[in-house]
């Protein structure tokens, strides 16, 4: 765990040899002036380092898989304490066996036992706390990584689902119009078949793209209006204004279309008599401004829950831009207005 705590694994693999060297040198220089032989110093420092590294690895193993909770938090203190005691004792046993005949050295060994235990204990204690912190941070990182993936997944699922909601009501009524036109007016029937095909092709094509040009979107919407004009020709008036130069802008698909669908739904399907739907595109600053207006009737019977709806547009805007202030709507004097701002670059 100590080895993987660094973002660069190359750096991580030097950690253990590094602390080993430091420990060895520290032990070596501390023992050097204690009046014992060079050989004794080297052997002592060597085993001290070996046991220390063993202890570190053991700590790493234990706290990698086990994070003490509130109830057994005392283990965080107890385990390093016992480990350091054990190691200091083991070191003393080993060295007193190794240099069994050298009483000067043995005296020093005995005198320094508690000193060694204390140093081992303090360092292990520190490492144990560090281990717990590292495992917490790593867990957090893993969690947020997964959360990100989850969000991405649900985003895709949601978008796919939204796209599928293309209204069957619209499709079947259009087919029915063609059905009616075939005998009465074959040429118009043909026109309608072509319109509907182009329109549906446009729907399918936009599924694969994350951004489309405004010119394409407008072409697509015009087809939509044309189809509705075949169905409700006597009633639908469309006022489409496109500021010069905005056609090249790129926008996410399925943002403007649902607004127009909504306008058709409330304006055309919801009210009687002639209906005027106006649609304006202009660029202001870094935003493409889209204004949609349609008449509505507060008492109208509109099919609930069909189509994308404005709330879906709001959700999409949030998923794409992370903002909730891009869509405004207002209703006054029988006219419903929607104002959409799409951030654009270039």
């Amino acid at each position, binding site marked *: 765990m100590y080895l993987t705590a660094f973002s660069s694994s190359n750096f991580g693999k030097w950690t253990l040899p590094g602390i080993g060297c430091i420990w060895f040198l520290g032990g070596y220089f501390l023992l050097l002036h204690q009046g014992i032989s060079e050989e004794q110093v080297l052997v002592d420092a060597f085993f001290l380092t070996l046991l220390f590294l063993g202890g570190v690895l053991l700590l790493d193993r234990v706290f990698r898989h086990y994070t003490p909770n509130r109830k057994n938090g005392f283990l965080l203190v107890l385990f390093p304490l016992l480990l350091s005691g054990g190691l200091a004792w083991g070191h003393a046993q080993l060295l007193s066996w190794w240099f069994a005949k050298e009483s000067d050295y043995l005296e020093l060994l005995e005198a320094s036992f508690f000193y060694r235990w204390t140093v081992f204990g303090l360092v292990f204690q520190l490492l144990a706390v560090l281990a717990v912190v590292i495992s917490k941070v790593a867990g957090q990182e893993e969690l947020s990584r997964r959360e990100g993936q989850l969000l991405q997944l649900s985003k895709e699922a949601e978008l796919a689902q939204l796209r599928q909601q293309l209204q069957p009501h619209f499709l*079947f009524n259009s*087919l*029915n119009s*063609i*059905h009616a036109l075939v005998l009465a007016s074959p040429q118009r029937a043909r026109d309608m078949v072509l319109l509907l095909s182009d329109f549906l092709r446009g729907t399918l094509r936009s599924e694969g793209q994350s951004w489309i040009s405004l010119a394409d979107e407008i072409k697509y919407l015009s087809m939509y209006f044309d189809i509705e004009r075949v169905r409700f020709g006597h009633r639908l008036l469309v006022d489409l204004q496109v500021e010069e130069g905005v056609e090249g802008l790129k926008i996410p698909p399925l943002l403007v279309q649902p607004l127009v669908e909504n306008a058709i739904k409330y304006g055309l399907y919801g009210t*009687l008599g002639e209906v005027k739907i106006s649609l304006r595109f202009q660029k202001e600053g870094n935003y493409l401004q889209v204004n949609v207006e349609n008449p509505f*009737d507060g008492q109208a*019977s509109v099919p*609930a829950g069909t189509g994308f709806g404005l709330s879906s547009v709001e959700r999409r805007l949030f998923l794409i831009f992370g903002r909730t202030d891009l869509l405004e709507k207002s209703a006054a004097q029988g006219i419903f207005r929607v104002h959409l701002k799409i951030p654009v670059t270039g």
Partner: protein
Amino acid sequence: MIKALIVDDEPLAAGLVNEFLNAYPQFEVVAICHDGFEAFKAIQAHQPDLIFLDIQMPKITGFELLELLENPPAVLFTTAFDQYAVQAFDAKGLDYLVKPFSEARFAQAIARFLSQHQTPATSNIVPEEGFPVLPGKSTRLVVRVKNELKVIQVQEVRYVEANDDYISIHTGEGKFLKKMTLKQLEESLDPEKFARVHRSFLVNLQEVAGIEPYEKESYLLRLRTGQKIPVSKTGYARLRQVLGL
């Protein structure tokens, strides 16, 4: 001659039904209407034997139109797509034509009508339990006032009282009668906004000003307008629950 009336908000769709019907000399198309209001008037004027009725139309739906007719004629529904009507109508309607439909399918529907038309006891098209509604989703009620239609938004309703087969809907504008049971209405309204406080009363919770005890185990509900409505024991329990008392 059998008098037929066609109701569809799309002229082409209505025209197609008209065209198909031309093949049957015993039928006479008395009117083609493009919305429920027009149709309501035409039905009063012509008393047709058969209506071809679209469901999804501006202002009022085909279902709502039918609910308002005293003696509804036989109905053949024509619709492109509808979430619930397809299932709901298997049993209830005379027939249900899904657009676009073939001439053969149309002929079947006509045959069905003709076979039932011979026997004078024509079934009442409005089913006993009313037309299917999406529970808790109604936002308005359509009623008839003499020969006109009126749409009432549910939030304008103060309370509703049951009177035999009818309900009387009380709003700021007055009282309106509709042929419907209180149970049907209750099911079609949002239970968080309307509560059945008594066997014969349903109230708009927005209009409630207070509750006062009255006799043993019964209460009186005071509306903002000062009117008092009896509350039954179960109604009181329900009120406490929805109002969070």
